[in-house]
């Protein structure tokens, strides 16, 4: 589960990589590949890396499908940064405004047809990251994913 506060109020962030991808099928694979490569030297524990890859892929999928409405001409921007205590991945799409938090998926409702089968992306992000932030304006929407390098809420697992 997420923590409610970041590890440091004003950390100094070093950018590891910044790139743009078209909003098309498979871009989420490319995103997780590039992010994995960018953090290689951090030597994250395998469990942290699995969580990061899932969250980055789901955030990118959301940006492609919901923010950019699967228009290949609209880019998804991804920036990976590290501070002394945390890793931050910002995923920005060209959607407008600050999206409301999606409905929490309910499996019983999905099996009974009361909820659509899909709608797990944000749920998986919440469950795999230590913290996240949503922001936006008229032209962009950004989700920031935080993975604490030590003392995260998943470290005891």
């Amino acid at each position, binding site marked *: 589960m997420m923590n409610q506060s970041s590890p440091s109020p004003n950390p100094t962030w070093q950018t590891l990589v910044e790139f743009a991808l078209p909003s098309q099928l498979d871009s989420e694979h490319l995103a997780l590949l590039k992010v994995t490569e960018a953090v290689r030297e951090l030597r994250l524990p395998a469990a942290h890396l699995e969580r990061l890859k899932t969250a980055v892929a789901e955030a990118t*999928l959301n940006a492609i499908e919901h923010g950019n409405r699967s228009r290949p001409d609209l880019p998804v921007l991804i920036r990976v940064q590290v501070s002394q205590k945390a890793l931050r991945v910002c995923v920005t799409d060209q959607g407008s405004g600050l999206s409301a938090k999606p409905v929490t*998926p309910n499996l019983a409702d999905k099996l009974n047809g009361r909820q659509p089968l*899909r709608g797990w992306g944000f749920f998986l992000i919440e469950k795999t990251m230590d913290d996240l932030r949503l922001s936006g304006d008229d032209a962009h929407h950004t989700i920031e994913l935080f993975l604490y390098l030590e003392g995260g809420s998943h470290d005891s697992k």
Partner: protein
Amino acid sequence: MTANKLEVTVHYQPNAAVFDLSGELTALAGEALQAAYGAAENQNPEVIFLNFASVDYINSTGIAAIISLLARARQANRSLMAYGLRPFYAELFEVAGLANYMPILSAEADLLEPA
């Protein structure tokens, strides 16, 4: 990098079908899973095992594909059971609640061995 499309190989045990899954479980997997289910229905298995041992990636749309399969099986009073999941994905299935409807076994033999 392109998605490694899911392949499903079906084989049968007494009263059971086993789907050996190989590749990535994404939205692209739905068609292969449903086709395999359709083929297995002819044998009327009580249980369908999903063998995830060769699945190297699962995303949210793949989870939706599994739920679609689960809904279809439940309508036919048929059980789905999973094994071979990597620990990280087993944990995701747990938090999503899938394990409540589709038991996650440590191995296929767990069910096939007599009590």
